[in-house]
């Protein structure tokens, strides 16, 4: 049994929204519904899904930046929901967040030195001189010149800013770093550099990543395991190879077929998705994917499929999963 660092049980988050003329009718956005998830120590777990499926909410609930409506998160055996505010602040040393947008996640009035040393300042690690020294070491670690220490974030490019964000996340030597779409705001040419940097750092410091992205192509390269989300639900989770070559959930297959790829003869049948992602305020009954699923049947509209393990590592939530073998013709060809 692998060593579990972070475990989410029945994690649910509903945001109340006011509707109607006087805001009397209260509805709820079902951002997360009953998520069961384990993150193993030293692994990179990729999480993918379309915009609005609850990925970023998941990241924030796992870090207890947002209180879950129901369910618990335990980190290294500690139940985060049971902690006092003070204990939780202390706990944050071990778990850091890298943001999607490096332009808005860095305080424009702070120098790089104080940005990177901010976590050290907050937790009063070392003397101010030691913090500055650590900040300049970290800059080198993430591939920035030490001479930039006294510059302001607006003087940097997007990729450099994201490196600052990563250095800041590393400062306290955390066990877990949650990367919330760390490259989707960057130029394609810079994306690869940042992903490689994250991968190097993971090996160098023995980190655990929860790596969120909206497309499979980004997580494919970096992840040990991949979890696929749809409308607040986990629909499939398994080792990266399995997800790409033997996924069973139609939604996962649709995501894979939506990946841009170079082919001489586009023989494989893509699995097209109809329509838009439904509103999370009124999620469809039964399987949440049935409104867009090409294989949906009567049972899918009535009964919600549970996430069931296929084998030790691979689980999916579907009544009529695609065949495990890849010769049906429906499954898109995937070139490794």
């Amino acid at each position, binding site marked *: 049994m692998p060593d579990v660092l972070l475990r989410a049980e029945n994690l649910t988050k509903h945001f109340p929204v006011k509707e109607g003329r006087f805001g009397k009718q209260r509805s709820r956005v079902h951002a997360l519904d009953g998520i069961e998830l384990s993150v193993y120590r030293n692994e990179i777990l990729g999480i993918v899904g379309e915009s609005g499926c609850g990925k970023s909410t998941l990241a924030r609930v796992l*870090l207890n*930046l947002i209180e879950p409506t129901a369910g618990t998160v335990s980190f290294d055996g500690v139940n985060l929901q049971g902690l006092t505010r003070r204990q939780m*602040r*202390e*706990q*944050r*040393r071990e778990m*850091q*967040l890298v*943001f999607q*947008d490096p332009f*808005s*996640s*860095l*305080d*424009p*009035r702070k120098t790089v030195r104080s940005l990177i040393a*901010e*976590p050290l300042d*907050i*937790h009063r690690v070392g003397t101010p001189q030691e913090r500055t020294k650590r900040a300049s070491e970290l800059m080198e670690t993430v591939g920035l010149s030490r001479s930039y220490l006294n510059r302001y974030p607006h003087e940097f490019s997007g990729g450099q800013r994201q490196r600052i*964000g990563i250095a*800041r996340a590393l400062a*306290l030597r955390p066990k877990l770093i949650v990367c919330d779409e760390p490259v989707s705001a960057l130029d394609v040419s810079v994306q690869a550099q940042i992903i490689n940097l994250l991968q190097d750092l993971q090996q160098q410091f023995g980190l655990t990543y929860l790596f969120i992205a909206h497309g499979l192509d980004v997580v494919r390269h970096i992840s040990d395991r991949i979890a696929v989300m749809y409308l607040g639900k986990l629909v499939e989770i398994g080792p990266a190879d399995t997800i790409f070559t033997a996924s069973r959930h139609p939604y996962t297959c649709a995501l894979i077929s939506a990946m841009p790829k170079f082919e001489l003869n586009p023989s494989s049948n893509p699995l097209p998705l109809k329509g838009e992602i439904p509103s999370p305020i009124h999620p469809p009954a039964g399987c949440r994917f049935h409104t867009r699923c090409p294989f949906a049947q009567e049972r899918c509209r009535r009964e919600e499929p549970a996430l069931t393990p296929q084998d030790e590592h691979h689980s999916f939530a579907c009544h009529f999963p695609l065949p495990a073998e890849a010769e049906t013709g429906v499954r898109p060809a995937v070139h490794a």
Partner: protein
Amino acid sequence: MKKLWKDPSSAFCLSFLLLITLLALLAPLLTPYRYDQIAADPLLGASWSHLFGTDEIGRDIFTRIVYAGQVSLLVGLCSTLIALLFGVVLGLVSGYYGGALDALISRFLDGLLAFPSIILALAVMAVLGPNIYNAMLAIGLVSVPIFARITRGSVLTMKSREFVEASRSMGAGDGRIMFGVILPNSLSPLLVQFSLTFASAVLIEAGLSFLGLGVQPPTPSWGSMLNAAKSYLTISPLYSIVAGAAVFLTVLCLNLLGDSLRDHLDPRMNKRR
């Protein structure tokens, strides 16, 4: 700051305010008289020995204007600082925590804003009794809601910014987030308001002194000098003009400075230029 000096109107305002401040600070060196010294016959016109003439009991008006500047600027500065301090704290707390606390603070401030500021200051002075410290408190209290509202507004926009969430995710406490992250990013509107409130504080102080509720004689104040001068408007018009001009120019310059600060600090205004 350099940009301000390049703009002619704000350069004029800055130089005038600097001049007034210097005159007030260096008052004892600039004039041979004391502000309560009867130096010559009453109601003399301008002359080399009495630059602006003398007042109704023969005190040098220039000396009194300069010393009154000390009082006016000091009251203006201190009351604005009081307003800034309380306003910022109230605004930060109500914007950051929201909910019932926000509602309570906001309604309280609405209540304060419902009164015309000079009336409220008058009422407070009537209760506390007229002296210079109570004047600072009263004028400060009157200006608290403006600062609180401005701060609350910027807290509400800043609170949802990602770098604030970033600080929280690193384990920063509420105090650190409010004073270390949100406040430094909300400084420019506060700076503008500081200048504007300073102007209105000088004006209210003059008003209170005019009505005899501010600084007590023989300490001079621009307001009380105006009050005394109005009886001799026909005999010695210079007396009224000088006292009035001191208030008028100081307030005008502070207001103009506030406006150009806003123009220079607000990026949206910059684009339009």
